[in-house]
Structures are given as C-alpha cells and as structure tokens.
C-alpha cells in the first residue's frame, strides 16, 4: 500500500462510522441535494449516509438522472400511447432505449440524447463523448448500432464564440462517429442568439437487433458475477452528472472541477465488437452502460431491476488513477465502460472474448437476494443501501408553472407592419438573401466531415429529407442465397425553437409533424418517436410552462398520429445567466420502408416532369425564417397544426413511392416553397419553371411556412393516376410548374428568374466563408 492510500484509509467514511455519528455535518448542499432530500436519505437509511452513499444519492437524485422535475409530465407519453402502436413496442420508455418490432424477426432501437453543457466547455470532446454515450445506450439493448444523427444549435453564425464552438463540435461528432464506423445520415443545424452561451448538441443513434436478442439492464440470479469491462476508471467528469445538470453551468464554473471527459473512440469501437460477440454467444443475463453517474448508476439500476441485491468490492475496479477515493470512483464518468451480469457457468467464455478484443474485464461483485446494494473498500463496508431508492424512488416534484408574462404581448404582435416584397425584383433579392442565411444555407461544410458511406447500407443521407439505411446482415444473407434484404428504416430529426417560443404546444407538434413528414417524403411509413427536450431552468415557472405545454403537445400529437414515444432525454438548465434558450424540443421520427429501391429522393433530375404542390398555403409568417432573416422579428402565432392533414399527406407520399408515381419529393418547412425548390434543384440537374396560381399572392406562395405541405415531381405518364389519387383522398394538389433541364434556373413566371449558378454560389458559400 502506498503512503497516500494509507492516509486515505484513515479518512474512509464507513457504515459503522455513520451509525455512530448520525449528526455529523455533510456537504449535501454543495452536492446539489436539498434539505428535504437529505432528510429523506437519512430516513431511508435510518442513519446519516456515508460519504460514498451521499455521493451516490446526489448523482442519482440529480435532475439529469432522476427526472425529478419532468417525471410528472413525461408520464403522458405512457398514458397516451396510441392503441394501434401498443403491439409494436417490445420495450417501452424507461429502459436505456425503446425497442420496436419491424417484422421479419427484426427490431429497431433508437434514441436521442443531449450533451449540451460539456460541448460548451470543450466542444470537441463534449460532442464526441455525447456520440459515444448514445451509442452505448443502443448497444446496451443488444443491438448493433447502424447509424447516427446530430441535431445542433449555435449562437449567431458570425459570433466569435461560434467560431470556437461549431468547428469543435463538428470535429467531435465526426471524429467519434467516423472512428466507430457509423454512418452519419442526417441531423440539423440552426443558429440563434439565445444559444450563444449554451449551444445544443443532441446526438441520435439507431441500432438493429433480432427480436429474440433484446438485452435488459437487470442483475438476475443470486451468485451471478458482476463484471466491469472496457476502459479503466479515471478522475474525469467527477460530479459531472449532478453538478452540470442541476445548477446553471455558469454559476459553478469556477468552484467545481472541470467536468471534461476525453473520449477514446477506438476503445469504444473495440467495446462494440466485443459486446456484439458476447451477445451472439448469449453470455449475459443483464447489461448496462456506464454513462452519467457512472458506477453509481450502473450498480443501482442493475440491482434494482433484478433479484434485488448486489455486493461489490470497489477495490477491484481497475483504475487509471490510483489516488481516486471511493466517492470519486462512484461518481466518475469515465467513458467507454460497461457492466454485465454473467452466470458463473458463462464467465470463462465471457472473459475469453474480452481477451480476444484486448478489453479489460474484472469481476467486481456478485448478485444476491439481500435486497441491499453493499460495497466494500479496503475491507470496510462503505455502502449499504436499498437500490430501488436510488434508481427508481428518487424525489418527484410538481414544479410551479406560470405562463410567461410576455406571452400575450408576443402572440399579439403579428408583425403586420413588416414590409413585404412586392415586385419581382424584390422577391428575387429576398429569395437570394434567405437562401444564403446561415439557417437555410448549404450545410455541407459540416456534413462533409461525416462519413455517410461506412457499413455500405446508406440509401439516403443528408441533405435528403430523412436518412435511410438498409436493414440486413450476414444471417439474412445466409438465409437468402447471399442477397441483401430490401427492408429499410428512415429517420429524421426536427425542432424549431422560434415556433415553440410562440406556442410551446403547437411548436412541439410542428417539430413532430415535420419529422414525420420528412420520413414520409422518402416513402417510409412513420413508426415511432424519440425526443430530446432542451429547456431552461425547471425552477423558473415560465420555463416549466413551456416544458409542460411542449410535452402535452408531443403526447397528444403522437397519439393522434398513431406513433408511440419510445424514449428520449430531458436537458434542463440551458440558459445564460437567467436567460433561457428558446425552448427547443427536438423530435426524432423513425419510419419503415419495405423496399428501399422504392425510396423517393429529393433531387430534380427528370426533364419535363410535372411539379405539384401538395397541401394548402396560407398567409403564415409567425416565427418564420423570413421574419427572422429580413426583419429580426419574432412574434404572432406559429403556422397552424393539422395532424390529420399530415397523416393524409404522408399516406399519399408513401403510396406514390410504392406505386412509382413520383420521382422526387421534398417537404416544405423553413423558408417555404422557394427554399424547397432551390434545394431540390441544387441537389439535382434540372431547373424549374414555376407558375404562381391566379388567386395567390406571390410572396405568400413563395415564402409562407404553412405546415402539411410537400412538392413532388410526377412523370407525365403517371400524372393522371397521381392526381386521381389525390382527388380521391381529398388532398389538395396544385400543378405549379415543370422541371426543365435547359432552363438551369428557377423561373417564377412573371416575377423573376434566378440562375442556378447564382443560387448555388449564394447558398454554398455562407458556411465556408464563416468557418474556413
């Protein structure tokens, strides 16, 4: 024993000592626990907690891990599960990630998670470890991760700090995902001043597994071994979970240790392959990744979900830094670690696979039926707790809710006085300015840093409306003469902070509707939802109102659309000082397509195809890109939500894809019709000639953000069938023009003509000019 650890030993707080000195002062407030919470811990234990127990309760009862402010609201996702979706849910909310049945013995698991605060402190590592964390969640379900996506928000594109944060975040997302060999198939990037001191980095991962291979986080069977494997435990991110997530990031910046974790994507890649080999050999009874709250979380959750008891010898945990004390080991957020429960019979096979992959694996404890989680350190008992009280029975708060004082004023000011472009020339310059604005400009400066090809199953990737990957594997090919499957899954993420600020209920539904529409546009049928709820402080009643309205909107919306929420993540305390970010629920929708060769891409490639606009266009500019870019204005109401119309539109798009009636489709969202036309032309090879319908104002026609719309390119030979289908289903379909290979421009007849070369320059140069 080294002298320093001998010295530490005398400082170890044991259960025995805690029993003797129940009134000793403890720094529970500094650890983020409230007076009443500390009192409850004492009541549960019948004594004061040891310092190790205190560390565990503080991280497990933090906002981030316990969902104490959001739980009462999130319950709605379960209560309102649409009936038609109940039987596809193999694993619902509450596990590491939800699992849905996609037929043919396949299942899909997917989830989105935030890593906002760490990405502000150290953009590259923060974003990288965000990707690493969500990938481990998916892996934990027993799935092979098959793709990632990233939804990003930054301060103004030209702000100096954005030049620090954005390139770092992008290299972190790319560096980690690329190194894992996971294609990045989509995401979002948006800029707004409220994100300047608080960027949002939300990462999504999707994995595929067989329905009979689902793994759960539970420690079952007395006598089974608890194995910690992967990276060694170091001092990184100590206190990260509780401190970063339960107090505003600014306030504690100086007093606490920097909670920076450095990711090792190579270690994670090896860990993934190692786990998949272990799963294939069916060697674990339970498994859990180590994320926020590290060992505290893994041990308590496994124990709570299983037989109920576990004994751990903390001395056995392999350390990177031998000076760590038990409290630190329990709170460390070192990356690339997993914990498995393995029967004694399977242990040697398990260890052999770890050895093959050069993964450190150590038995640190055993499952028992004592109903207690106990831990020893240097021979002394330092933890003795009922695990459920940490994992499931944390505090639950009904936080005060109040509609923001300025909400009425905000909604009442519709910006009716904002000057609108009236002439063709003015419309043209508006169009150019919008397409070059950072929110609408080409994102390839970012997405070219992401590998979209690896694994060889990417059918669609950014900038398509949804990413799409083929679902196939060696087992399928072995059963089907070496042919790959044609089954595919599609994914899109969307969020709109401005709409949500104007009306959180409608704004959240608009984000849901857009992701749903994006998936359907590619020809896939929407199936399930994940969400990442990025909000300010839950202690601010105005923020809590935004939150509760948004959750209600999502729950109602999912019920109406018939797609269940399978999981997600809540990120509170996104604020600078007391100014919260725009409320930003990000919705991820998963869809399914039987035959990936039938997918509908967005590019305009076919000369002479007829261009149809589906849906209704109204004068809706509340929260629009136009108001933001041209006037810096936010007010009024967001576009109206009509989820029945969204369902109808989706049905038409899916049928059109299946029956081969359309060759290209693109949904309408930020920036309206003009932006969609520009994106489809620039992605493809043709221009378009567009006619403004007689009774419509050209400005509204081109830039309104009415929801429930898409454009499609229909071959002349299919025109009658297509319009008949729309008529029969009562979906408005207006012919608005034709694709023209010779034109090489967007020509809005009677208004203006914009050559594609000029458009491309404006669109493509914005981000490179800003970020190099």
């Amino acid at each position, binding site marked *: 024993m080294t002298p320093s650890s001998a010295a530490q030993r005398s400082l170890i707080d044991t259960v025995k000592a805690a029993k003797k000195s129940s009134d000793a002062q403890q720094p529970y407030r500094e650890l983020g626990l409230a007076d009443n919470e500390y009192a409850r811990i004492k009541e549960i234990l019948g004594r004061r907690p040891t310092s190790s127990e205190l560390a565990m309760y503080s991280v497990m009862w933090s906002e981030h891990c316990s969902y104490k402010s959001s739980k009462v609201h999130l319950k709605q996702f379960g209560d309102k599960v649409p009936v038609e979706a109940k039987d596809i849910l193999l694993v619902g909310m509450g596990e590491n990630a939800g699992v849905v049945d996609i037929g043919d013995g396949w299942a899909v698991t997917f989830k989105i998670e935030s890593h906002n605060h760490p990405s502000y402190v150290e953009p590259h590592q923060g974003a990288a470890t965000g990707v690493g964390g969500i990938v481990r969640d998916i892996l934990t379900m027993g799935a092979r991760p098959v793709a990632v996506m990233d939804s990003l928000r930054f301060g103004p594109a030209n702000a100096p700090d954005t030049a620090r944060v954005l390139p770092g975040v992008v290299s972190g997302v*790319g560096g980690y995902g*690329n190194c894992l*060999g996971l294609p990045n198939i989509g995401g979002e990037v948006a800029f707004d001043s409220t994100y300047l001191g608080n960027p949002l980095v939300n990462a999504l991962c999707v994995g595929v597994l067989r329905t009979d291979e689902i793994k759960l986080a539970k420690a079952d069977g007395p006598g089974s071994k608890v194995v910690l494997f992967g990276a060694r435990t170091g001092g990184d991110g100590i206190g990260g979970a509780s401190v970063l997530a339960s107090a505003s990031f600014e306030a504690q910046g100086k007093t606490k240790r920097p909670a920076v974790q450095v990711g090792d994507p*190579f270690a994670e890649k*090896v860990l993934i392959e190692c786990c998949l080999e272990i799963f294939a050999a069916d060697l674990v009874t339970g498994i859990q990744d180590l994320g926020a709250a590290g060992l505290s979380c893994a041990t308590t959750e496994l124990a709570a979900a299983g037989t109920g008891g576990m004994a751990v010898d903390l001395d056995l945990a392999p350390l990177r830094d031998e000076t760590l004390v038990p409290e630190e080991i329990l709170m460390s957020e070192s990356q690339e670690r997993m914990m498995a429960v393995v029967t004694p019979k399977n242990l040697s096979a398990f260890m052999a696979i770890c050895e093959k992959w050069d993964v450190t694996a150590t038995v640190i404890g055993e499952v028992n039926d004592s109903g207690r989680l106990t831990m020893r350190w240097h021979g002394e008992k330092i933890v003795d707790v009922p695990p459920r009280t940490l994992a499931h029975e944390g505090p639950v708060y009904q936080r005060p809710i109040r509609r923001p004082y300025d909400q009425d004023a905000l909604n009442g000011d519709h910006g009716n006085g904002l000057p609108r472009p009236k002439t063709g020339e003015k419309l043209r310059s508006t169009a150019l300015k919008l397409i070059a604005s950072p929110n609408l400009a080409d994102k390839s400066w970012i997405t*070219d840093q992401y590998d979209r090809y690896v*694994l*060889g199953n990417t059918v669609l990737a950014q900038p398509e409306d949804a990413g799409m990957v*083929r679902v196939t594997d060696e087992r399928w090919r072995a059963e089907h003469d*070496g042919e790959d499957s044609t089954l595919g899954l599609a994914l899109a993420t969307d969020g709109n902070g401005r709409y949500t600020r104007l009306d959180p209920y409608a704004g959240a539904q608009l984000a849901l509707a857009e992701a749903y529409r994006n998936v359907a546009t590619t020809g896939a049928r929407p199936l399930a939802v994940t969400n990442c709820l990025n909000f300010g402080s839950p202690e601010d009643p105005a923020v809590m109102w935004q939150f509760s309205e948004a959750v209600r909107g999502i729950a109602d919306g999912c019920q109406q659309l018939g797609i269940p929420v399978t999981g997600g993540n809540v990120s509170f305390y996104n604020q600078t000082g007391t100014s919260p970010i725009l409320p930003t629920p990000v919705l991820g929708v998963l869809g399914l397509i039987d035959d990936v060769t039938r997918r509908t891409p967005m590019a305009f490639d076919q000369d002479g195809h007829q261009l149809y606009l589906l849906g209704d266009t109204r004068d809706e500019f509340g929260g629009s890109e136009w108001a933001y870019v041209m006037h810096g204005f936010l007010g009024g109401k967001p576009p109206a939500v009509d989820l029945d119309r969204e369902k109808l539109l989706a049905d038409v798009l899916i049928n059109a894809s299946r029956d081969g009636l359309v060759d290209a489709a693109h949904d309408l969202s930020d920036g309206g019709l003009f932006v969609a036309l520009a994106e489809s032309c620039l992605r493809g090879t043709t221009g378009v000639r567009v006619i403004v319908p007689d009774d419509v104002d050209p400005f509204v026609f081109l830039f309104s953000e009415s929801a429930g719309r898409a454009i499609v390119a229909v071959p002349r030979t299919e025109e009658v069938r297509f319009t008949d289908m729309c008529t029969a289903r009562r979906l408005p379909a207006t012919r608005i023009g034709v694709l023209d290979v010779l034109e090489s421009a967007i020509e809005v007849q009677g208004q203006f003509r914009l050559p594609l070369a000029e458009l491309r320059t404006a669109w493509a140069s914005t981000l490179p000019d800003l970020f190099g």
Partner: protein
Amino acid sequence: MTFPGSLDDRDALRAVRLAGAEPVPLWHGEKWLSDVVAVVLPGGFSYGDYLRAGAIARFSPAMQSVIDGAKNGMPVLGICNGFQVLCEAHLLPGALIRNDHRKFVCRDQRLRIENAETAWTNQYEAGQEIVVPLKNGEGGYVADPATLDALEADGRVVARYLGDNPNGSYRAIAGITNEAGNVVGLMPHPEHAVEELTGPSTDGLAFFTSVLQKLVGIPA
C-alpha cells in the same frame, strides 16, 4: 482483413462477393492466411490511428504473412487505412499525412485511372474517369521528389484526383502500385461504389473484378 478499429471491412467483403468471388474474413491476430489468393486491407482507424494511421497495424501477426505474400506476387489492395498500412510496412513508398485543410472529408470524388495494368485495375481503360467515395482525415500522399519522379516515370501512379485536390496529396496522387503491379494502395473507396442503391456509382466494382481476371482469367 480486420484489425481492431477496421471499419470498412464488411464493405470490402460485400464488394468481393458482388464481384463474384468468395470473401474470407481474416483476423489480424491470426498468422496464417489460410488459402486466400488475394488480400484487401480495408479502410478504418486501426488502433484509433492514434500514433500515425497504420503505424501500429503493420506489426500485426497477419501483416507479416501479407508482406511475405506480397513479395511473392500475391495481389494486395490497401484502401484508405489499408493504403496507410502498406506505406508503413514499406510495401509502397511514401506516406500519408493529415489533410492539408485539417478536416475529415467525405465526398464523391472524380478520379482518373492512370495505370490499367495492375492486378487491381486491369478491367479499366487507361485514362478512364470514375467516381467513387472518398473519406479520410489523413489522406495527403507525400514522398520526396525523387520518389515522386520515379513513380511517374515507371507509370506507378494508379489513380489521380480530378477537380479540386481533396487533401493536398502531392501531384494529386490518389493511388500507387509497387513495381510488380500486385500491390496497390488507394485512398478513395471503390468498395463503396459497387451498388446503385448505396453508392454514387458502380465504378468501383472493376477493382474487384480485375483481381479475378488476374487470378483466374474470368472476366466477371
């Protein structure tokens, strides 16, 4: 061949299969190459590329056998990370360094096949233009001027980038071969251009049919 950290190994297997051959997965830790007749070293980040791309992988037990095989004429194709491994193993001259713009780049890349006589390119025409994905962080090909001149003079530049140089490679070199023409290193990824559905083209397939032609004389 799979090293710890290989990423495009499954894609290489698929490309070999689509070309009509039987792919055999090899593990870096196994010294024996069993009875394979050609080896593809796939893309990826072997050992995380932490020291230098390919620097650690080249010491794998299996690499010794690949080096021996290559010297005896066995066709070996190194793609991306595999190219880096071949340079580190001194089967090919020069080295690959960080892209000049210091970012990872993923794009559909136009290439010109300069040498259509190697074991891996005999199904192309010299001068043929193809489009295949390119994705790398350390793809800048460098060598001293004498080496570059010799490569040019001997026709050992296999493929060259067209359009903007994506990574700062000297003389826009995308791929090279050894003197015997059996070992080829290529930075772009032909194995990702073998299916209409998932690639920008099917231009990459001919790398894999070339080696079949070379080995068994059956044009696929």
